[in-house]
């Protein structure tokens, strides 16, 4: 009985570990594709169009950016953006 329980427990642990590994592989493949196709193509297009997505080398007499963010419409706060 004890051995049987140990066997079931081991089997469950094994399946769980296997499940995690499969998930990791699938995640990796999917994210690899998303990154190198989705992000990659956008990045390439941006580079061709000379569009900057991150201002790594800002210039000017000041680095402050005008923002003027105050109270907005109440419904705007229910948005996540």
């Amino acid at each position, binding site marked *: 009985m004890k051995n049987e329980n140990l066997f079931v427990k081991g089997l469950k642990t094994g399946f769980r570990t296997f499940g995690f590994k499969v998930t990791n592989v699938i995640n990796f493949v999917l994210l690899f594709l998303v990154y190198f196709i989705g992000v990659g193509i956008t*990045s390439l297009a941006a580079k061709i169009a000379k569009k900057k997505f991150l201002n790594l080398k800002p210039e000017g007499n000041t680095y402050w950016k005008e923002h003027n963010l105050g109270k907005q419409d109440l419904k705007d706060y229910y948005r*996540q953006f």
Partner: protein
Amino acid sequence: MYILGISCFYHDSAACILKDGKILAAAEEERFTRKKHDTSFPINSINYCLNEAGITGDQLDYVGFYEKPFLKFERLLHQHIEMFPRSFWTFYQALPSWINEKLRVPSLIKKKLKYKKGVMFIEHHMAHAASSYLVSPFKDAAILTVDGVGEWATTTLGHAKENDITILKQIEFPHSLGLLYSAVTAHLGFSVNNSEYKVMGLSPYGKPTYYEKFKKIIDLKEDGSYALDMSYFDFHYKMTMPSKKFIEEFGPIRKPDEPVTQHHKDLAATLQKITEEAIFKMLKYLHSITKSDNLCMAGGCALNSVANGKILSNTPFKSIYIQPAAGDHGASIGVAKYIYHTLLGNERNEIQETAYLGPEFTTEEIKKFLEDYKVKYSQFKDNKELVKKTAELIYKDNVIGWFQGRMEWGPRALGSRSILSNACHPKMQDILNLKVKHREKFRPFAPVVSEEDAKEYFECDNPVPIPTDFMLMVYSIKKEKQKLIPAVTHVDGSGRLQTIRKQHNPLYHGVIKEFEKFTKVPILINTSFNVRGEPIVCTPLDAYRCMMGTGIDYLVMDKFLIKREDNPQHMWDSEKYAKD
């Protein structure tokens, strides 16, 4: 009306609840899960807040979240597009948590709290600004927020009048004073988002010999705006922070077990100097555009107590307010207060003068705990005896665990979950380190002084600002007094003091004044009730285990006195928790 504020998923998850605009309860998740800087959804903090209010999630009128997740995600996508293909590993590691939780905040909240209404989202730096201004004593104030990064902003200048706050200007990612501080923290071998205060503590041991080199890294304008030379950093596309170029310039990254050398101390000193210079310039500019003499600060960098202590003497501001949890945890108060006062237009109705917002335990609950665990204890007759006996034990160089009332809000122990000891003993720093804290030798211990006596011992601002009550200001100790309190005098003669006002915590104040009768010095060592690497204790069990696993001699818990020697020891091995 009940409003719940939530901050989570990056560091220091927390929740806060308001009842009719007043803070009823607030706590960090780490105190419940015992995982330092816990980032997870703060379900324990929320449950505590709801219990304190006596309501369930579906009875909440509003729930607010401390940032706009989609804007943050947009910034992340911009980073990856710009840094393609070098950012792949970060993308691979970060994206699953975005898909699983960070972009699903409303459904997560609704599911976990059974809350049926909409969730409100406030910009991260607005939540920071509100967390300070809306609980400050000011009706008009300039606001500076500085942290690692929110959605896009890393530093903002704001102006507030009555209930309204306007963020006027900002500096955007990747240019971040907070991330510069974190990058150097990482280079010095300490953990990011955790040990920045150690770098601050290390800085007085060094000289800013790398100042000119640092000027290449950060271009600081006269108006306090700045830009980083990103070739020195990797954080915009990698998990690591300093780049190869930084390492070539400043040497290899110190491994945690390597000794701290003069080079490291000089780096810390240079960083602190640059940080202060940047903050003072920003503040002078902020004052010039807002014309307000009152200053509110928030964001992780507002926990830089060394810089804070110099602000009023180095800038035109005449008064300052910082709330005890100035980092991301505090933004949960910010979002809740912003909804109540700014969005709903309700009158401001409180000033946050204390940090006692966390769980407390009744005498009966504590007694039951002691009985259940068969702890040997004695009971004080009354508070007078409690105060007198505790002061006497401290005078006799015992280390005391002090567990009274509601747990503190924010990263500092302020007299509810504190370890107290004799500040006059020249070896007390070593004794405390040996018995309990296992800290690096360079880190000072903090003094707590009765507010009315602070000016006699410290070169502090006049009047003593409220943030001093939250241990957020470092001041010089008067030369003639330094020898009286050697255990809390840092190498540069400064002390990160906490002032305590009698009306805020009469027992704690009483112990200090009673100690004065023995020594003529109204100052104790106050350090957080934990071992290194562990969050501050929350419950009686946490406190008892901490005492039994360390060298704390006595625990004064509510009306009870527990002597370590009288009880079975080694229940808990503190050494294994004594990490970074």
